[in-house]
């Protein structure tokens, strides 16, 4: 097959599979935020990618500070927290100023947030410059370990995966095991009743939206460990992340994880055997075809319509 020996193919699958796992982790982090905002609230946030970029720039900025004060080895944990907090705060603000007026018009939210994403991209360009920048990574994130002589697994990939797992678990706890999550789910199921039993639904909306943005910020922090950041970095991932959410079934956390995994793996393995563009085209095409046959996504919540 393609002139590779069986052992080569094995190594390629492991290494491409692993690079697929890094992509999977970033996609998952992006899609988790979107799944909360889109799946739970029905709001299309086209500026979601820009919230990721906020997180990435926050990390880059902190890394410059860390270099100055010589604390490169420790800053990264704080960077993740800071990325979350800043993206959360901006998301909170955006919900207050913009989104809450448009809940009844989902298609218009899409346009307004697209406008927002243009403005944010230009702000990034004016503040940080049009060139791509990368963070100074701490020593323990660099390098790779080699289980066998032919396989190299980069440590930053492992780290991003771990981060994605922790965040996913956190989201699960928040949505399904906490009082707040209960309020969110109640509001989604029946807004009027939720309000009647004393849940402040407006506040729930605001925090849910901000939380989704905050997670995108964490995705941005994770992103800096595998690639450099530019003003339009976020917009490159937005369609992919939407496909992940829609493909997985909008309201399902499991579905989001499964479809992020499937899409990322398919892309990175296909990209090795075909050209990079054809790999992407094939993946997206298959998703679109499946969605045409099964519009509710892979893991649709069974709800009587």
């Amino acid at each position, binding site marked *: 097959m393609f002139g590779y020996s069986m052992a080569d193919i094995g190594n390629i699958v492991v290494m491409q599979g692993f690079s697929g796992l890094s992509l999977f982790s970033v996609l998952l982090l992006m899609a988790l935020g979107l799944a909360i905002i889109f799946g739970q609230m*029905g709001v299309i946030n086209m500026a979601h990618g820009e919230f990721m970029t906020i997180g990435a720039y926050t990390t880059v900025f902190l890394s410059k500070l860390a270099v100055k004060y010589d604390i490169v080895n420790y800053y990264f944990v704080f960077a993740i927290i800071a990325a979350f907090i800043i993206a959360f705060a901006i998301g909170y603000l955006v919900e207050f100023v913009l989104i809450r007026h448009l809940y009844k018009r989902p298609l*218009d939210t899409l346009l307004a947030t697209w*406008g927002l994403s243009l403005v944010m991209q230009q702000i990034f360009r004016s503040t940080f410059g049009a060139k791509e920048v990368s963070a100074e990574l701490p020593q323990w994130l660099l390098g790779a370990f080699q289980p066998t002589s032919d396989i190299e697994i980069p440590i930053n990939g492992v780290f991003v995966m771990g981060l994605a797992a922790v965040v996913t678990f956190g989201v699960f706890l928040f949505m399904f095991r906490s009082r707040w999550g209960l309020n969110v789910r109640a509001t989604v199921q029946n807004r009027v009743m939720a309000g009647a039993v004393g849940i402040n639904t407006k506040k729930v909306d605001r925090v849910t939206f901000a939380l989704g943005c905050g997670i995108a910020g964490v995705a941005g922090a994770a992103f800096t460990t595998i690639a450099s950041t530019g003003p339009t970095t976020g917009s490159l991932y937005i369609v992919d992340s939407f496909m992940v959410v829609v493909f997985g079934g909008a309201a399902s956390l499991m579905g989001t994880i499964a479809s992020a995994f499937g899409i990322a793996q398919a892309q990175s393995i296909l990209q090795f055997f075909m050209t990079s563009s054809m790999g992407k085209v094939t993946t997206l095409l298959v998703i679109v075809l499946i969605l045409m046959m099964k519009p509710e996504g892979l893991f649709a919540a069974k709800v009587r319509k």
Partner: protein
Amino acid sequence: MNTLTDKLLGGKQGAIGLAILAAIILIVLPLGLDPFRIGMVGKYLTYAFVAVSLVLLWGYGGILSLGQGIFFGLGGYCMAMFLKLEASDPVSTKIQTTPGIPDFMDWNQITAIPLFWQPFHSFTLTILAVLLVPTLFAFIIGFAMFKRRVGGVYFAIITQAIALILTILIVGQQGYTGGVNGITDLKTLLGWDIRTDHAKYILYYINAFLLIAIIMASRYILSSKFGMLLLAMRDKEERVRFSGYDVSNFKIFIFCFAALISAIGGAMFTLQVGFMSPTFIGIVPSIEMVIFAAVGGRMSLIGVVYGTLLVNYGKSVFSETYPELWLFLMGGLFISVVMFFPNGLAGIYTDLMKKFQSRKTKSVPVKLEVVAVVHEKTESEPILTSEPAGAKA
């Protein structure tokens, strides 16, 4: 006036609006602008085709397609392939390794014209392809989606993904499509040089007349029973379905018609601008065309033409002088139009007229009231329809 002309022109008010638009694009602009600027206006007017298609699809049908660039691009590419084959005759391409094939194919070591290029040797087949290829493509997409009751935001996201797929495909298959540069260096149409100033004026007029004809055809469709059904579907899809109409067929029809209009715009774009590239297909141009429609007024066939001209004029002025300001303005425009003027320029105009007339006489014309009711409906009713399970609150 008899009923047919009445329907085409949209009553007395519609006729006046159309006459003013015709006067501006047929007389005022060609007289007032130099050939270079006229070429630019001609280019913008081809975008207006897409904006008009979005009025039908989005304003009246409530179906937001974020992939109208697909059809604009397909129409444009069909035309460009014909012109490219005509431009690459064996004599003018004799320095190539394989003379007689388009230059970008030669650069990519392709030695024969691929099969799907063959029909574009004939002008008749090209015109058919411009009209049919995008419409058929829209039919396939529409059939697959609307029959399964995919609508609202899901439809928007999927059309956007298709636009992305098509762009990546065209950029990736450089040897067959010209890649990221697109199909360039188009010279003649059936031996007639399209690059001269004279030709530019003629193409401009053909384009303008086509646009007016399409606006009239769209008027006709919207004022028919089908137009009423379209509005009804947008506001209460279930009720239309329960009344015994097959909603999906109407949606498929309007989606195909919108694709056809966009494709004609795309073909005219290629003729006037002299090239076609994937930058007119992807996500960004598709969504920009939605903003043209939104600024002009998603419910107004004539308003969107002004909207398109205005936004593009603003874009060219600002990107020449303050390029970094333009994105702020464009983004701000998106947000403010959506939040404060959901009916765009046409809505502002209608409101002003209403104020003016209610001051003059106490009675408000019936026509305007209908518009006002429609306006309120869009604000209070979610346009999102038939979403899959789980998304519904």
